[in-house]
């Protein structure tokens, strides 16, 4: 390649980073040449985001050196990085949706006539030039929330152009886009390439990586695996390099206890809460037997969490399809009805949607089954307390007192409190969304044991986890979603990290 004769736009040398003693990145090297799309790949937790945040000036205490156009730099803040020409387009975008398109483009770099007086005319002129360059037709004075995510992303690119960035970081830019919008984004990326910009591209989607990428750098568990030309690296090899490691985590042995057909889901749809006339879950059908764990795999934006919320009635009316439980057709339109029918949902956001932080451990546990203890509205405190104590014991939650605020517990124990809350409702089907996220290995093992115990008792589990080894060890069958649809189903024997990842990226 001729590129090697050019001077690199960016060199990151021997980058290391640790968070409170845990090394999350070590000895990572990364180079970006003008006119190149350099893909950064690796599993969740491999350190991609950390590396990007170091480059974008978010993390400032790291080891190693960053060289930009042949000079060593150190960014103390994201703003400094931006001024030096490094612009990051995040998944959560740095735009203010209530402001106009023009104001957003110039946010932080307004054109003024001095003394802070905005020069609207010059701004508008410049903005028009930029948008024309990007081939984007939007009203400058319209507020941003009028436009779909795809347009907003383009506006973020326009903002990068204002800063005369030479390096653009795109972190999963297509996760919210449809195919048409993806094509348009790729056209713009190709334009930028031709102008000599460098693009760092993060994506989990195989077809995209090969379509837009020139080279790829792979990280695994915070270490540098290597940099390859995508022309010479086959997909199979790429996945092997990404997954690579031995499975060292411990899982309890899983025995299958398959019973009667319990949950049948037919042609299930969930409407996109953010965009009208779009589905986040499309035409999903599956069945679940008593005592079975059905794993659901998929990347971000695959609709797996939305599927569970849809079944649980979180979205009210905006779902479609048939759900049968033990031979009875259900029509669930609220979590309250779902609980009554024997469903329980552990969400993937413990603090945000799981716990009631100011309440005590005990009150959090009894929250979903209060009606049992208060048939006439009066809470039978003695009965409630006894039931809570029993649950706490059954799940071996480590607490000082039932009256302790739930916030004071460790992550693992908090998760067990939520599980205890759901077990108290005597559910038939448990919907578990990342049940072991952010908790330590010991607590994980206990939760796996609980899952085995409950399925042995005949309960069924739908399990979402982004940790593939966990999925392989715990699930009896695995359903892989891609963009809201079922891509493939694997039995326990068929499933491997490689073929799940491939299916999740949209390849059969």
């Amino acid at each position: 390649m001729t590129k090697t004769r050019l001077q690199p736009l960016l060199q990151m040398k021997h980058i290391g980073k640790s968070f409170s003693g845990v090394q999350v990145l070590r000895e990572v090297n990364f180079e970006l040449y003008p006119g190149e799309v350099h893909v950064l790949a690796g599993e969740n937790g491999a350190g991609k985001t950390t590396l990007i945040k170091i480059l974008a000036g978010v993390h400032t205490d790291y080891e190693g050196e960053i060289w930009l156009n042949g000079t060593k730099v150190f960014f103390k803040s994201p703003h400094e990085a931006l001024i030096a020409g490094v612009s990051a387009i995040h998944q959560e975008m740095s735009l203010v949706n209530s402001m106009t398109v023009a104001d957003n483009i110039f946010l932080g770099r307004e054109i003024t006539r001095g003394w802070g007086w905005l020069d609207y005319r010059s701004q508008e002129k410049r903005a028009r030039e930029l948008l024309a360059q990007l081939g984007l037709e939007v009203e400058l004075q319209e507020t941003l929330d009028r436009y779909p995510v795809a347009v907003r992303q383009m506006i973020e690119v326009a903002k990068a152009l204002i800063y005369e960035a030479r390096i653009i970081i795109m972190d999963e830019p297509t996760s919210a886009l449809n195919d048409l919008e993806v094509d348009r984004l790729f056209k713009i990326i190709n334009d930028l390439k031709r102008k000599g910009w460098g693009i760092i591209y993060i994506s989990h989607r195989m077809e995209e990586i090969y379509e837009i990428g020139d080279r790829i750098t792979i990280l695994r568990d915070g270490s540098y695996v290597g940099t390859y030309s995508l022309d010479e690296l086959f997909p199979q090899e790429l996945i092997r390099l990404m997954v690579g490691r031995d499975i060292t985590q411990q899982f309890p042995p899983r025995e299958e206890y398959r019973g009667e057909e319990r949950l049948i889901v037919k042609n299930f749809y969930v409407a996109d809460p953010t965009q009208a006339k779009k589905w986040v879950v499309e035409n999903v059908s599956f069945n679940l037997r008593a005592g079975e764990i059905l794993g659901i795999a998929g990347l971000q934006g695959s609709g797996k969490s939305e599927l569970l919320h849809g079944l649980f009635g979180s979205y009210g009316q905006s779902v479609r399809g048939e759900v049968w439980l033990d031979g009875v057709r259900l029509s669930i339109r609220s979590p309250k009805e779902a609980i009554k029918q024997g469903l329980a949902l552990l969400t993937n956001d413990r603090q945000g949607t799981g716990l009631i932080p100011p309440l005590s451990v005990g009150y959090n546990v009894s929250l979903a089954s209060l009606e049992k203890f208060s048939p006439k509205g009066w809470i039978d405190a003695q009965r409630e307390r006894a039931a809570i104590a029993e649950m706490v014991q059954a799940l071996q939650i480590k607490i000082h007192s039932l009256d302790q605020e739930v916030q004071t517990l460790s992550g693992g124990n908090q998760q067990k409190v939520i599980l205890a809350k759901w077990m108290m409702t005597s559910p038939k089907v448990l919907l578990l969304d990342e049940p072991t996220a952010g908790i330590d290995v010991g607590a994980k093992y206990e939760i796996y044991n609980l899952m085995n115990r409950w399925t042995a008792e005949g309960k069924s589990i739908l399990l979402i986890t982004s940790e593939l080894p966990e999925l392989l060890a715990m699930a009896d069958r695995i359903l892989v979603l891609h963009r809201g649809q079922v891509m493939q189903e694997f039995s326990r024997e068929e499933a491997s990290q490689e073929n799940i990842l491939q299916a999740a990226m949209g390849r059969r």
Partner: protein
Amino acid sequence: MEKPRKKAFFPSWRAVFQSPTTRALAALAFVILLGVIFNADQAFFKWDTHRDMLRQISVFGILACGMTLVIITAGIDLSVGSILGLTAVLFALFSLQLHWSPFLAVGVTLLAGLVCGVASGGLVAYFRIQPFIATLAMMVFARGMAKWVSGGQKISTAVLQPDGTYVYQEVPAFFNFLNSKILGGNIAVVTLIFFFCIALSWLILAKLRWGRYIYAIGGNEEAARLSGIPVVATKLLTYGLSGLFCAVAGICQAAQELQGDPEAGLTYELTAIAIVVIGGTNLMGGRGGIGLTFIGAITIGYLEKVLSINAVGEASRLMLTGIIIIGAVLFQKFRQ
């Protein structure tokens, strides 16, 4: 395996010191200390002073009961003062001019308060309008309605005659009863009504499922919803109860003033909020209790009393009240 330990009979000093109740009591003790030090005419050592303090704070305290419940749901009710005005006017109208029986007059007035509360609750819960806005609108609306019902005039026992003179009617016995002091003149009837409201609120918060739902919604509304809690109904009931308490306060107010003043209750919502906050109930929701509000009410009551015993002018009194409210709240903030 660790079992949950039994609750120790004596809680640790640290826990006692950090409990919000201790903090609230400390603020109260501080105000009482001020009373003992600045004790003009030895007034602070007479029961009458305390009895009057309790009587004067009762109407505010009743409002603060409903306010506490609403604030624990992470809401706010700005309409309490106006609903008090409206219900005071209605009660005076029913009793003094329409000569309804006390039973009917009280019943219909309470219903009016309840309807106002449920209306703002509906706006908050069903239409998801921010509590501040919804109850602000109700505040303006109820005040307007009070003026409309009364024609902008105070409704009193004085009835205008065709020749331009006033004839004073007899005050209904029920008014006199509400305005009297019982138990040997040692406690005002309105104070007992205030205590009753406190007891009722305590029952709801501590013993009923409804109360648990109030805390859960204030602590994390989405988690509460996903746990199957009827969020809309709970909020509707809670704002409704606040409206009902307003009507109780409005009836007391009318009886004490012997008239229905459409301007009654102006800025009372602010005093009610101050009582709740001084008690230590968190405006973020999910934390607090009615016991704290009771302490808060007495604290504000004593503060007013101390300032009036010492004949502090209104200007200084307001400024001092502002400073002491901030002082109390800052004091409670240093919890960690």
